């Protein structure tokens, strides 16, 4: 490798890839084979965290930031005046292996701008993964972008060597996509997703019958939406997510708060803060859908299409449904305990395990690490001396907001500041 040039390319192409949020490296089943290099089974591992607190698990780069498209929200858009670069196939392979052997990473996340045409681009990406798997006997994690418009043959080949494939839907609605990415069609994104879903399901069925069936994208597929660049409400966004989870067997939907990078007047101006709180609330809602048994209609609806920014969506649901509370954790079903604000998935399981030994009291919950100050408004304890005061949902919300110490607190203060 020519040292200076590779260093420069890495700077450009890692910088260009960083707006892709996914850095997960879990959920694959690929094991070390024939005493080769790497093992992608087991939990994901974050090898480092950036100064903005995000996980660095994979060598996340673009093959090139040359692109024939001109999507307004994208830093690599054709009309943007930035430095361009492209890795060779061998350079990506050497970087991946060199980083992996030093335990810097769990594997490779490879995306690319679209140069020439989709098939040409996809073919290069596939060539890299093939080389890693077949020549280097590399069994680490590989997340590959499926380029919209690439042929079925290439996508299938990609699935045979990668652990995860993803196509970014980018915009929550077709209207926004048309507005900001005139070269792209919604259907171009949906089609490869459907194709991958069918293939993944097909290979899984086959695998059950014949264990020798090769792996096909064992860590499934994911997608990403840019949040806050356009006018969608949370109902539209979460509705889209729900569709992906239910209809596309999507493993993850990522939300990427728009980082202003353009003077384009269709977009928020440079200097507009990244909508980090909203992004955070969307992830919380996403978790409720996937792990807490919530239905999307319980979180957002036509009567309230946006998530509250000042409280989390689970507390929001509880305050709208006070008739479901108080709940006695000593007798309630796990599903109901999961719905109590301040109790998470592991907390709920701990409660169900610990209550076999004794009737749990408030101090027991505190010991278990439950956020009791938050959950107490929703809990019933059969103690004759404790009077349950009937608080309204507004009172509860005020109590909680006054006692919690959110880093966003200043953004929500009801008090007018004088100076």
């Amino acid at each position, binding site marked *: 490798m020519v040292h200076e040039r590779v260093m420069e390319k890495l700077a450009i192409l890692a910088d260009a890839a960083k707006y892709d949020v996914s850095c997960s490296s879990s959920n694959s089943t690929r094991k070390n084979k024939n005493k*080769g290099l790497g*093992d992608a089974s087991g939990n994901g591992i974050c090898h480092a965290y950036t*100064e903005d607190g995000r996980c660095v698990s994979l060598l996340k780069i673009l093959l090139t930031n040359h692109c024939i498209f001109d999507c307004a929200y994208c830093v690599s858009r054709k009309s943007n005046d930035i430095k361009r670069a492209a890795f060779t196939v061998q350079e990506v392979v050497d970087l991946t292996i060199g980083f992996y*052997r030093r335990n810097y990473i769990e594997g490779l996340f490879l995306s690319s701008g679209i140069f020439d045409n989709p098939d040409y681009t996809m073919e290069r990406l596939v060539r890299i993964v093939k080389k890693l798997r077949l020549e280097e006997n590399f069994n680490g994690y590989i997340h590959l972008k499926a380029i919209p418009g690439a042929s079925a043959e290439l996508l299938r080949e990609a699935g045979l060597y990668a652990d995860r494939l993803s196509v970014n839907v980018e915009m929550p609605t077709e209207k926004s996509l048309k507005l900001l990415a005139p070269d792209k069609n919604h259907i171009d994104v949906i089609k490869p997703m459907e194709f991958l879903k069918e293939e993944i399901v097909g290979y899984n069925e086959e695998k059950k019958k014949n264990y020798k069936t090769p792996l096909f994208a064992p860590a499934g597929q994911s997608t990403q939406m840019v949040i806050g660049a356009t006018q969608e409400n949370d109902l539209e966004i979460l509705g889209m997510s729900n569709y992906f989870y239910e209809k596309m067997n999507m493993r993850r939907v990522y939300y990427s708060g728009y980082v202003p990078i353009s003077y384009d007047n269709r977009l928020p101006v440079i200097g507009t803060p990244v909508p980090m709180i909203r992004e955070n609330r969307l992830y919380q809602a996403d978790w409720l859908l996937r792990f807490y048994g919530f239905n999307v209609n319980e979180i957002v609806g036509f009567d309230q299409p946006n998530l509250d920014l000042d409280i989390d969506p689970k507390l929001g649901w509880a305050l709208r449904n006070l008739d479901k509370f108080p709940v006695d954790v000593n007798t309630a079903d796990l599903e109901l305990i999961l719905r109590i604000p301040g109790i998470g998935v592991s907390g709920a399981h701990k409660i169900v395990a610990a209550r076999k030994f004794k009737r749990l009291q408030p101090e027991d919950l505190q010991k278990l690490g439950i956020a009791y100050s938050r959950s107490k408004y929703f809990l019933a304890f059969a103690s004759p001396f404790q009077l349950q005061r009937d608080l309204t949902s507004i009172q509860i919300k005020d109590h909680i907001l006054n006692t919690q110490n959110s880093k966003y607190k200043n953004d929500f203060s009801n008090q007018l500041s004088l100076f």
Partner: protein
Amino acid sequence: MTQVIYDSTFEGWLTAVFEIYEQKFEDVVFAKSEVSNTLLFSERYFVETDLQKAKRVLNGLKQKLSSEGFANIYKAFLSEIDKMDETLFQYVKYIFSSAINVEDDLSNSPVLEVRKAAYLTGRESHRMKAFVRFKLTKDNLYYAIVEPDCDVLPLIEKHFTNRYADQRWLIYDAKRKYGIYYDLENTTSVQLEFNANSNSSQFLAEISDDNEEFFQNLWRQFFKSVNIESRKNTKLHLQHMPKRYWKNLTEKIPNLKK
């Protein structure tokens, strides 16, 4: 009161547990032979590590616990939290005195303490899987230095053996002065002493592979490039990468030559 003195190994502690039951000691405190500060007014009892006895205690525990609960005892021991040997003994007494599995009885203090200690060790062993940074030497050895709070090498050995099956590597715990070494066939525990000059840049340049420094710089560059300045969140960064680990993390050590 009896002061039970063992050799600070897990097997030694298990032997001690066996003998406390055998000798019917009522009131015990544990002490490790390397730091045996004598207590006034107490009997001293020396334990000779006996693998047979250790195994009998382990078998007894295995029957009373789930596989996870069983593994947690070893993890809690490795946490090296002050007086964990005593807490663990309280826990073991509770386990043997009950007819049912008590590992989930988290409102009981020793049960909770042990669970917490096991969690701590578990978290740090996960972190070490992440924070080991191998450096390549001229004779093709990938070596890394770590200084974890808990004694986690026994817990991460398998992970690294599965993963780096085609390269020789050594992970050295500078705090406890021992390492695990994989020679392309087996992983073994090795005792060695690094000399004081081993951190001088001249020495490192002499032993390092020609491309080693380049890769370290590539990694630093990558780490810098993936950061998004407008989302800066130092609190979160520090929560995930506590400062005590920085001195062995390539990306957190500035390149002095630049």
